[in-house]
């Protein structure tokens, strides 16, 4: 060619970069201005891109250009065409994005956060399931933001083929997500990927990526044998044959090293075991030594003192989850014979605060030697005591640790732990932890089957242990979902062969059942309905007595104005004498007594049982029962007013009158408990239906008391 521009001629002939630079300098203004005019003044970046593209075309096509080419004309035409291409391309992309956005509006969840929440848990696993080719296509497009041209080049495809590859990959990804219940259109998925894959990429990402990528790139370059081999492979255009050869090499190499490995592996493992551990490599966030220190898990020292020092070092570190794991890892390595001295030493030297870490010890030692662990922990000191269960029981710090050991043991080997407990239930050295350990089993059994729990409770000896075993059953049944099972459980207890256990358990069950008030009716109402549904009169009678004995027990939530009518009717059906006898028995066996019980028990009493039973009731109420201070505060405090209501019913004046005077005095003085003012007492005396002689005693006693109390 003989171009009109000498610089172009020189570039074509000699490949002179200086000539091309002069050419570029001379015509750059023309090309850039043309592109800027076409694209608009606001698109200077795109104009620069167009100029670059045009000069690249010039360099590529220089040898094929006509000899009489006027370079400036050619450049102008190319610049205009390239700029128009940019506009067309952008308008097409804008149209696609609009369509995609519209589709997304139709398909996507309304809330972007909802879409994120739907996709986030699945997107990475779905991506991982795709073929490598699909993963590469998606990564290039969405993570590296490659245009199709570059995608094609990097995938060895034409731009169109790259686009098709991406479409197929997207469709496959969409199908995988759909299988996981995330249904999205391809357009919505495209937009989400476009947005999400680049959204959270602050400058720190770039820095991190660079720092990660550069050494890797350097390693790849040197590892590939430098530029020589790379160039050689590039020259090798027959990739199919190269790949075939590589496959053959891999298979044969794999076979060879596999065969050789079989014979050499013991040597390799021996040498590995014999060689010292390599120095920890450095990791982000600090020097190698510092990082290693943070993740170091010491191996247990040979002496108990050494152990203690390590233990203190670990628990002295910040109480983070990572350090808790370090402690656990350290404990997991502990040889069995070192546990006992460690706990003994730590118990002697640790403060109560430090002893909180004994919980970790307990959980881990339980996996090694639970019996030794329980015994050692039972001997440890430490505050505070812990509450145990619904019943009023406390257990020492050491006892609660021993119970925790048992819990871990039972979760690991329930049969073994359960048998051990049955075998040692009468051994005094375990007495402190037994109720707690029994609760552990009770909770597990009650969660699956209340009847299994009850059958297991029957195998224990003594009310205390049996009560502990059954507590979880009542707790579960008292929850809303378990209410329908109360009657089944009570019926099964009524039919239990071991009547001693059956009665005790049924009493406990009914006590728990009637404590649950629901739908505005008293708690005993459903229990009474269950009683009425029993076919056997004997069963009904037994159930009625148990209901009454439980209703007589005061409890804060119990409404004293309501009467257990069905149970009373059942008792009366057995005849007035029997009813009186049973009522008297209930009172004398009651322990704490509900103050309103006089309303429905007094009418039942008659004959020789009447006065002793009334006197017993009056004394119960007058004294209260300090033993039930925590479980039943209503019954713990003296209640002279309620006691007086019983006392006035006594028929023997020799017993009645002194008691009335005594109770009246208490009522007027013990204002802090249930005492009343003198006016209230006068009011009660005048308005209550009382025998005249009783009223007279009350009035006289009141006057005496008022005279005495005057200053």
């Amino acid at each position, binding site marked *: 060619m003989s171009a009109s521009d000498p610089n172009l001629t020189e570039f074509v002939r000699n490949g002179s970069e200086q000539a091309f630079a002069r050419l570029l300098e001379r015509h750059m203004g023309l090309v850039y201005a043309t592109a800027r005019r076409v694209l608009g003044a606001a698109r200077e970046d795109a104009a620069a891109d167009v100029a670059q593209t045009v000069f690249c075309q010039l360099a590529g096509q220089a040898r094929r250009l006509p000899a009489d080419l006027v370079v400036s004309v050619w450049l102008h035409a190319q610049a205009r065409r390239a700029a128009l291409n940019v506009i067309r391309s952008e308008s097409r992309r804008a149209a696609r994005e609009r369509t995609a956005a519209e589709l997304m509006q139709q398909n996507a969840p309304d809330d972007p956060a909802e879409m994120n929440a739907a996709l986030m848990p699945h997107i990475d696993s779905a991506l991982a399931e795709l073929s490598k080719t699909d993963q590469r296509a998606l990564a290039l497009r969405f993570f590296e933001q490659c245009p199709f041209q570059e995608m094609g080049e990097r995938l060895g495809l034409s731009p169109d083929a790259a686009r098709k590859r991406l479409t197929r990959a997207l469709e496959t990804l969409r199908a995988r997500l759909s299988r996981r219940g995330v249904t999205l259109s391809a357009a919505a998925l495209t937009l989400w990927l476009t947005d999400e894959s680049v959204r959270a990429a602050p400058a720190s990402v770039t820095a991190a990526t660079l720092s990660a990528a550069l050494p890797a790139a350097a390693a790849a370059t040197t590892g590939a044998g430098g530029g020589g081999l790379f160039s050689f492979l590039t020259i090798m255009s027959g990739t199919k044959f190269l790949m075939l050869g590589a496959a053959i090499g891999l298979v044969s190499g794999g076979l060879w090293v596999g065969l050789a490995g079989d014979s050499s592996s013991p040597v390799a493992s021996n040498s590995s075991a014999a060689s010292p551990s390599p120095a920890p490599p450095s990791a982000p966030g600090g020097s190698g030594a510092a990082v*290693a220190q943070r993740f170091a898990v010491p191996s247990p020292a040979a002496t108990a003192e050494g152990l203690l020092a390590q233990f203190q070092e670990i628990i002295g570190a910040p109480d983070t989850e990572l350090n808790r794991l370090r402690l656990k890892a350290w404990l*997991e390595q502990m040889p069995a014979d070192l546990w006992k001295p460690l706990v003994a030493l730590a118990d002697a030297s640790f403060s109560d605060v430090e002893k909180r870490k004994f919980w970790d010890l307990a959980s881990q030692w339980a996996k090694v030697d639970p019996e030794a662990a329980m015994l050692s922990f039972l001997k440890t000191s430490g505050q505070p005591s812990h509450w145990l269960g619904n019943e009023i029981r406390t257990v020492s710090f050491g006892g609660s640790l021993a119970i925790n050991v048992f819990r871990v043991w039972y979760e690991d080997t329930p049969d073994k732990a359960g048998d051990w407990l049955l075998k040692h239930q009468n051994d005094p050295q375990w007495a402190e932890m037994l109720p707690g350990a029994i609760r552990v089993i009770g909770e597990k059994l009650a969660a699956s089957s209340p009847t299994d729990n009850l059958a297991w409770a029957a195998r224990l000896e003594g009310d205390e242990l049996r009560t502990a075993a059954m507590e979880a059953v009542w707790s579960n049944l008292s929850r809303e979902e378990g209410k329908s099972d109360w009657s089944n459980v009570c019926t099964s207890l009524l039919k239990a062969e071991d009547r001693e256990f059956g009665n005790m358990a049924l009493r406990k069950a009914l006590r728990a059942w009637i404590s649950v008030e629901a739908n505005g009716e008293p708690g005993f109402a459903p229990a009474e309905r269950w009683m009425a549904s029993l076919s056997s009169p004997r069963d009904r009678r037994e159930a009625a007595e148990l209901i009454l004995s439980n209703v007589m027990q005061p409890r804060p939530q119990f409404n004293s104005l309501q009467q257990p009518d069905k149970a009373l009717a059942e008792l009366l059906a057995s005849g007035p004498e029997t009813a009186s006898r049973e009522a008297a028995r209930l009172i004398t066996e009651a322990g704490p007594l509900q103050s309103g019980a006089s309303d429905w028990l007094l009418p039942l009493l008659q004959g020789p049982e009447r006065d002793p039973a009334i006197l017993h009731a009056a004394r119960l109420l007058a004294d209260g029962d300090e033993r039930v201070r925590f479980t039943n505060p209503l019954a713990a405090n003296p209640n002279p007013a309620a006691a007086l209501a019983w006392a006035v019913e006594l028929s023997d004046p020799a017993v009645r009158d002194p008691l009335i005077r005594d109770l009246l005095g208490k009522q007027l003085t013990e204002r802090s408990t249930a005492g009343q003012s003198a006016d209230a007492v006068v009011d009660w005396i005048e308005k209550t239906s009382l025998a005249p002689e009783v009223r007279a005693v009350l009035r006289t006693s009141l006057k005496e008391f008022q005279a005495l109390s005057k200053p």
Partner: protein
Amino acid sequence: MKKSSLQLIRVLIGAVIGFTAALAARKIMSGNISSGAPGREPALTFSSVGPPLVHPSETAPKALPALEDFRKMTALAKVNLAASLGSLTPIHREVFLKECAVWPEPESTQMLQLLLSRWAETDPGAAADWAFSHLEGRALDCFKDIAQIWAARDGQGLAAWARTALNKPDFPFAQGILVRTPRILERFNPVAMAEFLEMDCCQGFSNNGFNFSNSLRTPEAVKAMASKLPGHVEYISDREELNRQLAGKSPNPRNRPSKNGWNALFEQTAVALHGLSPEDCGAWLAAFPENAQLVARHEIAKAAAPAPQSRQ
């Protein structure tokens, strides 16, 4: 060269490359080249004198472990996993956090704590912000880990972040942060704690006693702390009221003479310094106001006769 010969050469070259790759893979798998892969536990021997170290991997995991796999991991494997989490890219970390946030408990909070505490080593503020904007009820559990790491390195930074958080209107975690931050600073950076408690955001903080023993373990630490206190200590000026309070006769038993963290730090430092050298302590106290000296001597006397039940 004939075409068939060229193809044969290409096949042979490919075979050599493949064979070399297979050998290299074998070498890596046999452990002669450290792969640094997470999850491979180092052998632990009880006879070794030095502590066996878990080797923190430079290679971040490419995906969050499956829940079942995480459940089966030993504590040591989890420590290894935590070591590798330090190299996560922000995008991976975000994905991991969101994935494990929907795991069931207790695995979810455990994994979140590991991820967030590793993040806290480089950007504790971002980790705390993420926790409070994504985790609701579990945020305070995670904050405890983050704040401990933060306090150990930059107590003032934690205090500044907490102040900003506490000044946010209707911030639902304000009370939790107000309770936890001084407690954590108390252990790792008492001076930052004292400064924090002087901020306006801590008006609602109530306290029944401080314990700076963690920061006063060594003689050097005690002396360094002692040098920081002049100028910060201030007790009530009413001598009679001060005496009443010291004698435990104040109407309100919670109305301790310590007005804030500085005073409490002063008292405990005085006790610790007295334990090291009564003479030095006397000279040091002389620089403080008279009422402050009175309180310090009172505390020193109390410490000399500990309660019989105390094992602290």
